[in-house]
């Protein structure tokens, strides 16, 4: 028994090594991975590694106000004298937290609906779920999010709700198309002929075979969710001052363009790098899984 266990772990080690090799052949994937790891590290440890941790909140030091980038403040300071680099690190924290919360709401619910609709392909259940999905997809997502945020009180929580509401249909569509094709595989028919119940077939037979595309989409989506969240806070409907979300830092800074360019450019670059990093990583994972599937 023990020998089988050690054999298996060796097998897994071997496949891990092989996958890493495949992943690392594309330098862009490595760039993505490093970017994502750096951003995540800064987000988690921002209170300890930020050069001016007090800059995250209501902190005013007019003696340091609106300083251009220097050795002391690599990204400059804002009009209240807060260090922008520190605020960007905290900004990663809020933006990543937002993305994780949104995906944690959107992925399970969207996948569940798509799975059910795909399993009951061609029945009224399919029709109801997928037509509702289509309706949500038909509304331009940003317009819907803006409408919801404007209706409710602008806050980080409400903007998260709004983005979730417009994001789940993509997962339900993805899970639907995967399920519709997997349910015709012989192993699903075999489980049906054996008499396994529909829940077992959906969650234990079909779902495990849908996970890798869904996981890939999740990685790619982190960037886009951050972008749309930033857009909302840019127009003043997301996170509110003094909370250092990247979007509202760009918004606040843009009032002082072009003289105090660093107030806008650095948070905007941070957004761009975040999205780029997650997209490169997602592409790498997608290539990896696509090869593995065959």
């Amino acid at each position, binding site marked *: 028994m023990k020998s089988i266990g050690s054999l298996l772990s060796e097998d897994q080690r071997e496949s891990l090594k092989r996958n890493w090799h495949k992943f690392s052949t594309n330098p862009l994937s490595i760039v993505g991975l490093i970017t994502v790891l750096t951003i995540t590290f800064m987000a988690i440890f921002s209170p300890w590694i930020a050069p001016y941790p007090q800059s995250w909140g209501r902190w005013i030091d007019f003696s340091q106000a609106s300083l251009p980038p220097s050795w002391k403040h690599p990204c400059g300071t804002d009009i209240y004298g807060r260090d922008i680099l520190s605020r960007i690190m905290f900004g990663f924290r809020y933006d990543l937290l937002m993305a994780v919360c949104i995906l944690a709401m959107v992925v399970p619910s969207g996948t569940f609906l798509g799975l059910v609709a795909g399993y009951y392909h061609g029945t009224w259940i399919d029709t109801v779920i997928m037509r509702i999905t289509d309706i949500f997809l038909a509304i331009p997502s940003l317009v819907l999010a803006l409408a919801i945020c404007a209706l409710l009180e602008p806050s980080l929580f409400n903007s998260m709700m709004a983005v979730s509401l417009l994001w789940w249909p993509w997962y339900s569509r993805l899970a639907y198309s995967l399920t519709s094709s997997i349910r015709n595989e012989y192993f699903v028919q075999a489980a049906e002929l*054996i008499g396994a119940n529909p829940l077992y077939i959906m969650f234990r037979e079909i779902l*495990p075979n849908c996970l890798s595309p869904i996981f890939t989409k999740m990685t790619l989506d982190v960037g886009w969710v951050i972008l749309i969240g930033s857009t909302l806070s840019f127009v003043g409907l997301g996170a509110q001052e003094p909370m250092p979300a990247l979007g509202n830092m760009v918004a606040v800074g843009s009032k002082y363009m072009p003289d105090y360019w660093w107030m806008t450019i650095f948070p905007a670059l941070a957004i761009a790098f975040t999205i780029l990093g997650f997209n490169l990583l997602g592409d790498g994972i997608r290539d990896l899984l696509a090869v593995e599937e065959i």
Partner: protein
Amino acid sequence: MVEGEILVVEDLRKYFKTAQGVVRAVDGISFSIKEGETFGLVGESGSGKSTTAFTIMGVYEPTGGRIFFKGKPLIGGVKKRPLSLKKDMQMVFQDPGSSLNPRKSIREIIELPLKVHKLYRGKERKRAEELLRMVGLPVEFLDRYPRAIGGGEKQLVAIARALATEPSFIALDEPTSALDVSMQAKIINTLLRIQEELNLSYLFITHNLSLMRNVASRVGIMYLGKLLEVAPASEFFHKPLHPYTKMLLSSVPVITEEEEKLKPKKIVSRGEIPSPVNVPPGCTFHPRCPECMEVCSKKEPVMIEIEPGHTVKCHLFNS
């Protein structure tokens, strides 16, 4: 219902609606399978033989006709059938690559029917080992995943899964067509041995006629959703009656001269199986038939019994 018949199919029909029109995949076929025998269903691709198996098993709901299993009628598709029935009827699919879930270990795959039917509780592992031994696979396979074993071994696992609930009837849908020749022999021998040990009844579907000779006790020839000839296997190969049967038999490749002599007079097979959407009128085989008569394109022949157990559907014998 005759004593000893495990499965009776009466006038079974399965139509599919498609964009091109209604496809009559199975169009009024009747046959019966006796306990412990292998009924072979032969036909070209698209003749409806797999659809027949899927309809009997309940993957498709029949458009018409009746199926009796152990004397009781089977109603509707698999979702409406009682659990006890699913325990008693199992199926082995054509493509072993897709019939095992790639995300599950062989153990999980074989133990699933035991768990669903609450059999061998607490002894699932022992039963799974026993099943693997029964199909001639090493017990170590239990902890492997389908991607780590070969195509023939996958098919043996699929057979072990089908046997798990101790069924009395198994539908085998071209169980060897996706495998290489050496593996085919192993699987056929395993199936025959298990049949003898457990007194199983098989519905064996294939397009390989020489395989039929070794496996089936009775054979039915299917063409465009209809049965053209049903006969005991020995008679079938020595005294084929239907021109289509003769055509199929004469196209079987042989090696020795003696075998060549056993074959019916060479009939060149011509044409291809027409689209099942646009079935020829009268006898569906008449456009390809070397002995086509005037009546063939006008009237459909009826199934008649020439000798006990040997029936044929052809105007040559209808007079």
